[in-house]
């Protein structure tokens, strides 16, 4: 390179800063977890003993089995609901299709632990459905244990399979199906032999997401488990019992969770690598109008699934308006539960907004910069950053939080308060949402636009702020809203990091549920659902505009 030309170019500096932030906030905690899992808690010497213990003691082994069991069956259940739903909405004329998609998205963004405790209110030992059937003499199996967790996972995670499969089905060139029919396939054969294989990559992607989220989920097994332990609840209680010492067993269990997630992702990669169906959309699929009982059955299934999935949310909102006296429902309606939030836990609401808000400000700034580096700078380092953006998806919240505690509560960053740790935890875990959405916006913009600005005399930062940022703003806003929704609903990591002054809404709800304070939990959940709903509405607004905003 000649002279001063490419010396400290603006984007090289930015790339460096990004790399430092990711190394400190992402890699340090993970490496710390990895290292601690090889340390003996008493002697502080290197050892494989922790892993030996996990793989020999029944307590841990059954946890591993349980995790895989609910993960696999929860995923299967999600596929059994999601795939038919996607096929029906993509291929048949349905009344209220937009409504079905909207409900599915609402189910997707609502925190899973709310579903879990709403099902307790319906099917728990004192649930109203249980009580109803008992009165007429029928014994209903309770919701607690593996089947309850699988039920909640199924109803909570099917929208991933549904939405991804639906998108893929809409993009399958109809000529393929016409050709199959022309060659003599019955509609069913055509579906099994042509359509299903074509959308299989999408189904598998949705299924892997379900599986990874099921493995990582803490709230559902914590609330519904009753002795049925999964790795995330084991890691959490190990961490609690090891407080004061080194949390070596907690991190060892965490490592097992990371490995399972990574294996799932590798499987997914292999599936996708072998199947790439580029489809030119010359011949869009057409929706057919069903008649008679088929029409009624398809309508019934589609609306039934989303309504049942929404049921927990409705129950929660309804419960929040029941009249209570302390933890007891006394019959009739009232606003006591909301009154109690204001009296006992107003700071949970403000904390939640402050932490999630601060995290989102960071997410916005870094998403814009990181997506530019990933999309526009084809260097080895930008490849590394792109890869690192996958990592937070793989690390369960409990694990990341344990990594944060073990890394930042000692050594050079030990001065940081719980509030800062929570903000940084939300930031690093939800950053990929912002980056992914912003990067896909940026890919739509031709690089020549920025070059034109530079050619006209704008320095790189100025070209970025005046030209690039306004053009990627819709993607940036959508990504940030998604980040906000998931940050404000975060439970498992917060449970590990929070202290007296930094309680959040999900933690308050979780604690209220454990105390049997269902009214209080319902009111807090309703507040949480409300702001989640507002964010979803905003996302809809911005994604709609995105298409015709800057063409």
């Amino acid at each position: 390179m000649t002279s001063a030309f490419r010396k400290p170019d603006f984007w090289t500096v930015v790339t460096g800063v990004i790399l430092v932030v990711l190394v400190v906030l992402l890699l340090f905690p993970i490496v710390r977890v990895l290292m601690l899992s090889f340390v003996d808690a008493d002697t502080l010497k290197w050892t494989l003993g922790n892993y030996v213990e996990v793989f020999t003691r029944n307590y841990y082994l059954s946890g591993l089995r349980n995790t895989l069991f609910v993960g696999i069956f929860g995923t299967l259940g999600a596929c059994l609901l999601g795939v038919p739903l996607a096929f029906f909405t993509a291929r048949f004329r349905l009344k209220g299709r937009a409504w079905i998609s909207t409900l599915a998205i609402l189910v997707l963004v609502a925190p899973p632990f709310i579903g879990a405790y709403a099902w307790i209110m319906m099917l728990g030992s004192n649930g109203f459905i249980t009580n109803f059937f008992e009165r007429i003499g029928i014994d209903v199996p309770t919701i607690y244990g593996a089947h309850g967790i699988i039920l909640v996972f199924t109803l909570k995670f099917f929208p991933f399979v549904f939405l991804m499969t639906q998108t893929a089905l809409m993009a399958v060139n109809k000529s393929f199906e016409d050709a199959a029919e022309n060659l003599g396939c019955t509609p069913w054969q055509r579906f099994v032999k042509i359509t299903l294989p074509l959308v299989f990559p999408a189904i598998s992607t949705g299924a892997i997401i379900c599986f990874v989220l099921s493995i990582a989920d803490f709230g559902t097994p914590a609330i519904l488990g009753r002795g049925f332990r999964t790795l995330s609840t084991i890691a959490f209680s190990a961490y609690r019992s090891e407080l004061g010492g080194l949390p070596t067993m907690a991190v060892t269990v965490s490592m097992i969770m990371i490995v399972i997630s990574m294996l799932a992702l590798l499987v997914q990669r292999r599936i996708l690598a072998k199947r790439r169906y580029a489809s030119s959309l010359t011949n869009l699929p057409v929706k057919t109008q069903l008649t008679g009982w088929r029409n009624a059955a398809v309508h019934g299934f589609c609306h039934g699934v989303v309504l049942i999935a929404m049921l927990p949310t409705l129950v929660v909102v309804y419960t929040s308006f029941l009249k209570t006296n302390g933890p007891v429902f006394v019959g009739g309606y009232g606003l006591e539960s909301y009154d109690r939030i204001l009296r006992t836990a107003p700071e949970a609401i403000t904390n939640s907004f402050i932490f999630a808000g601060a995290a989102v400000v960071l997410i916005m700034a870094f998403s814009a910069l990181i997506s530019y580096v990933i999309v526009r700078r084809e260097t080895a380092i930008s490849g590394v950053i792109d890869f690192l953006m996958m990592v937070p998806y793989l690390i369960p919240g409990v694990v990341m939080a344990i990594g944060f505690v073990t890394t930042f509560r000692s050594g050079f960053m030990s001065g940081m308060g719980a509030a800062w740790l929570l903000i940084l935890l939300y930031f690093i875990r939800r950053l990929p949402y912002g980056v992914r959405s912003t990067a896909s916006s940026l890919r739509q913009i031709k690089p020549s636009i920025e070059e034109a600005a530079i050619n006209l005399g704008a320095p790189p930062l100025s070209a970025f702020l005046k030209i690039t940022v306004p053009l990627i703003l819709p993607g940036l806003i959508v990504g940030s809203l998604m980040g906000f929704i998931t940050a404000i609903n975060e439970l498992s990591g917060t449970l590990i990091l929070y202290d007296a002054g930094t309680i959040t809404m999900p933690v308050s709800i979780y604690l209220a549920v454990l105390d049997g304070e269902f009214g209080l939990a319902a009111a807090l959940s309703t507040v949480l659902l409300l702001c989640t709903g507002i964010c979803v509405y905003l996302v809809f607004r911005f994604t709609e505009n995105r298409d015709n905003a800057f063409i």
Partner: protein
Amino acid sequence: MASVEITGLRKLYGDVVALSDINISIPSGSFFTLLGPSGCGKTTLLRTIAGFHAQNAGQILVDGKPIEGLPAHRRDVGMVFQDYAVFPHINVRDNVAFGLKQRKVSASEITKRVDDVLDVVQLAAFADRMPHELSGGQQQRVGLARAIVIRPKVLLMDEPLSNLDARLRVDLRAELRRIQRDLGITTVYVTHDQEEALAMSDTVCVMHQGVIQQAASPLDTYLRPLNRFVAAFVGGNNFLSLAKTGTQFALESGGAIVLDTPLKADIVCAVRPETLHVSPGRVVPSDTEIAIPATLLDVSFVGREMEVVTTIDAGKKMKSLARPDPAIIGLQAGSAVTLIANLDDLSFFEASETGGRVG
């Protein structure tokens, strides 16, 4: 207004040589075109001048001052992009004013200069429109106005007309040339369209595989191509194999002796399609002509002219262009014809891809 001097420029992508020892001299105010097939390095050269690529060796001097030390945003060279690159979120006026604002020009002068330049590109009525309300041709006028309003030392244009439809391309071509002449602005223009290059340029610079093949006036480029590549790329040529006996070279088809030279290399004979006449049947040539027996393959009549494809021995295809002739158009494929060319219209090149001109 400035002259551009490029010496010993070299650009590598890994092991691939994108530009190899480029030496160019562009006089102030002239229109200099880089012409070549895709991948020949013409766009790389343009973007290197703009500062979007750093060269591995060599110098670029604008008005005698080296510019490779300057980052792209301080080079003061205007650029017009193939895909217009009009900022989609601000209106025409703000697009054109962008570079002036970067240069901290006063608001009143910005208004005046933007109004003037919009008059020049005939977009005064569109100043407050958003880019998506403009046609492709209008967007490219905005691109041009935006580049020239900053009064750059050099104007760079990267295939600015290639995304437009054929008629508009011809109209805008003339307009670009007019504006360039009026402003007297030194211009480097990139295109793969030889007609565009010949019609617009003061100098046409033909590139191939990162190497400059010839830089000359349009007429010289067409009439006296320096090597076989230029002869083939600009205007197209039929190449005939020659058989060598001592110092004499004879056509392999027809046998006429066309060249007498002591050169050792293999040599081919080039004849332009429009100088190769097709006659039905077998014809005996005059003393100043050659005649090649051929078989008619296909005639396409496209209105103003007809394109006749014939095969000579060994199945080699020959192309000729001529005024439509019912006697030829009416012939059946497979008919015997004779290809006739004037000896003065033949030129000779060494047989390699970039073999030099002989004689």
